[in-house]
């Protein structure tokens, strides 16, 4: 008797799970990942079709990438990036037709959504982001260096493109801390100790100009 019931229970559970799967968070996540991949593929095509210095801004969510872009260009970048304290304010994972590139003067910017969130997993960026199609790659680090930062940086380094390491929220760090942070970052990224880390603050405006100078004065 008991085994009849248990088989019955398994059948019911299986049928139930098939129905539920249609709306489970898992399938939503899969769809988001799919859209993110579509958008990254489209990004590569758009980059190949445009000319001008191409710059990617990469970093953790909330590192201050969008604000940096907005501030660097004196609010004149088109379209103006979406800024917000919420996760995935810059979102490439829900609309397959979303805007991927912004322009300012001759420059073309990709304000890349923060990697390592539920809808923007670092693994997808590592696998398909077209690092080599940019002229300059800017890595924005907020607090401590995460393992995702290291992995992304290895890709940046491997692409052979020009890159700048920046540290946001500089208003929270005094000079002593900055020295320690710079040393820590370059060591972790296996860069020469003399490699500069550009400190900037979206809040005070400090260092914003030097990030832009670093982009614009290149060759």
């Amino acid at each position: 008797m008991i085994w009849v019931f248990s088989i019955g229970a398994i059948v019911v559970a299986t049928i139930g799970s098939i129905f539920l799967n249609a709306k489970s968070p898992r399938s939503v996540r899969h769809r988001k990942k799919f859209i993110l991949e579509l958008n990254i593929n489209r990004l590569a095509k758009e980059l190949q079709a445009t000319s001008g210095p191409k710059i990617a801004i990469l970093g953790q969510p909330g590192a201050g990438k969008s604000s940096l872009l907005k501030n660097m260009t004196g609010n004149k970048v088109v379209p103006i990036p979406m800024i917000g304290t919420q996760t995935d304010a810059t979102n490439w994972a829900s609309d397959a037709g979303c805007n991927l590139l912004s322009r300012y003067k001759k420059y073309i910017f990709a304000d890349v959504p923060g990697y390592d969130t539920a809808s923007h997993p670092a693994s997808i960026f590592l696998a398909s982001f077209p690092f080599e199609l940019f002229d300059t790659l800017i890595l924005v680090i907020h607090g401590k260096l995460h393992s995702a930062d290291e992995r992304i940086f290895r890709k940046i380094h491997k692409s052979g493109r020009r890159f700048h390491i920046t540290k946001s929220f500089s208003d929270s760090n005094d000079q002593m801390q900055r020295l320690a942070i710079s040393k820590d970052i370059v060591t972790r990224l296996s860069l020469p100790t003399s490699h500069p880390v550009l400190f900037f603050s979206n809040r005070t405006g400090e260092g914003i100009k030097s990030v832009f100078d670093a982009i614009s004065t290149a060759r």
Partner: protein
Amino acid sequence: MSIINNAENIKRLLNKELNVKVSVALFGQPGSGKSSLVNKIVGQKVAEVGVETDKTVEAAEYEAKGLRFVDLPGYGTKNFPKETYFERFNIPKFDLFLCVTSGKLHQADTEFFQELIKLNKVCIFVVNKHDELWEDGVKIEELEKRKIEDITRHAGQEIRIVFTSCKLDTGLNTLDEEIYNNLSEAKRERWARGAKAYSLNFLKEKEAASEKHVVLMAAAAAANGLNPIPGADIAIDFGILLELFREIREDFGLDDDALSDLKHSSIPAIATLANNAVEYATKEGLLILLKRFSSRATVKQFSKYVPVIGQVIAAGLGFAITLKVGNSYLDDAYKLAEEILKRRLQSK
């Protein structure tokens, strides 16, 4: 009941009390300020804080004043795959979890939180570095609201969210109380004694929890007639009382620095209390205190303590003295801690 049975009973109760520990697990991205938060809660520097990254290769553990904190390493990383994570770090045994974030939410945090919910575990979201929450032209209240909405959306349900700043000492009282409210009765006392008070209310809570501990320690000191009190016809255990004093000082955050600072207080009464707290911490000082109270103590039935510590001890002159001595030290410690806290609240 003999006095020996009573002494055994008290020893057992003390051991039981000593075994009550509050264990809190923290998770969240590197740099979200977990170590700073632990130091702020304990009120001592137990965790190393630094701007440099040290890759957490194991769970870092800190213990002080019966509070245990475990800083969990990254969930679902190469070193710590999801499949073995819960078993490896014995996740179900923790009383409470703190998800510490200072930027936006990361995939690992969201996923780990979902798993905790399945286990019916209490998890409080701590949005640390509140001082860094800023956006051009947006009011702080609006930013907080957005943050709450964002976390709620990721968590998929209403949850407790506390904003803290270890730089400005804000939100720490709310966190203290939020944790307190989510613990069982026995653990609440432990928490109130161990966690640093950031409000006068919590300091009162701390005093109440300490009072219970004083009763047990006083009874233990009275039951163990080791050292005779000169001039009085009784013997008690000085060591237990000195240990009690040390615990009281630690629970109220009265370390050497704090006390030497208070000794120079412009309020004479406070300076005297600080001097006494230091003096009574020695055997010679304790003797002075004991003599003072033993001349005044009378044998009287502390009937309310009988169920806890037993008839024989509760009725004894020794307990009458040790309880008075313990409570008087606790009173002084409370007043000193209150003075420190008031000063700190005023300077804000």
